[in-house]
């Protein structure tokens, strides 16, 4: 069993033993049920669909797509965000319940990518949303998206969820 799945391996190091354990247990549950919002905007949406498809099968990680922001934890911004779409994207992000994460999938979402020459594109989704993981590729392979999801899971596992307000 990999180290991060072990709930009590830091029993002796941490003085706040019980609290961290609850944190870890919670994080384990959270990390393995990351439901993502079906935010397919452009070319990357096909790869996003194929990631949920039979070969990459992202369900293995407990992730499945939701069409509504209210039920999702992760927003995969898959594609080019135009200026007309940006306010809608922001609203969808605001509708998601906390804690929420964002993957900028592909070059366009990272920094505008090949549409840097265009007049109607948001140059990078991090201008309007806080992005957790950047994923290069145009479009990234399903395996690359899987890797990004693992990065999100790692991030969730390292978070101290209950002590956030301190």
């Amino acid at each position, binding site marked *: 069993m990999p180290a991060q799945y072990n709930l009590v391996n830091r029993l002796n190091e941490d003085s706040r033993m019980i609290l961290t354990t609850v944190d870890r247990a919670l994080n384990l549950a959270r990390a393995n049920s990351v439901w993502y919002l079906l935010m397919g905007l452009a070319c990357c949406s096909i790869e996003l669909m194929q990631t949920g498809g039979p070969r990459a099968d992202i369900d293995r990680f407990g992730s499945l797509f939701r069409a509504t922001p209210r039920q999702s934890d992760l927003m995969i911004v898959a594609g080019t965000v135009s200026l007309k779409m940006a306010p809608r994207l922001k609203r969808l992000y605001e509708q998601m319940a906390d804690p929420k994460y964002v993957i900028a999938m592909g070059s366009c979402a990272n920094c505008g*990518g090949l549409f840097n020459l265009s007049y109607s594109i948001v140059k990078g989704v991090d201008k309007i949303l806080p992005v*957790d993981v950047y994923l290069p590729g*145009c479009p990234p392979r399903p395996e690359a998206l899987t890797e990004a999801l693992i990065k999100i899971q790692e991030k969730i596992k390292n978070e101290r969820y209950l002590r956030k307000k301190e």
Partner: protein
Amino acid sequence: MTNAAAQYFRNIKDAVRTTAKGMKITLKYWLREPAITIEYPDRLGEGRTADDIVQDRFRGFLRLDSSICIGCLQCMKTCPIDCILITTEKIGEERHLTRFDVDQSKCMYCGLCVEVCPTSAITFSKRFEGACYDIRELCISHIHQPAPVAKPKAKEKEG
């Protein structure tokens, strides 16, 4: 009345038949060997790495062989979105490459720079994994200390 009853039973028969058909197809793929799913990243199969699941010509991250780069700046000029930055400097007698950065977050993996390179110094690797928490990590430097550029003529003689 009898008509309606006949229709009712026909519907039941139809439902059973179509469900059985669907289940047959599902069963066929369920029992299929090898399975369609590639269990990236944990179980890729015997001795396989992430590079083996992509095809030979896969256009992944750009890679530079700085020993044969002649510093002609063709790739930088041909890139439509300026995702390559090269600076050269004259140190002593020879021209040195001082900077060869590729912005992988912006790159569209079109291959124009690879096609235009006269010595095939810039090529595609099979690497596709590059997710990171900070976008600055995706700006990849290929030159860490000034390296002398290769001489095009010398290269030709070798070839």
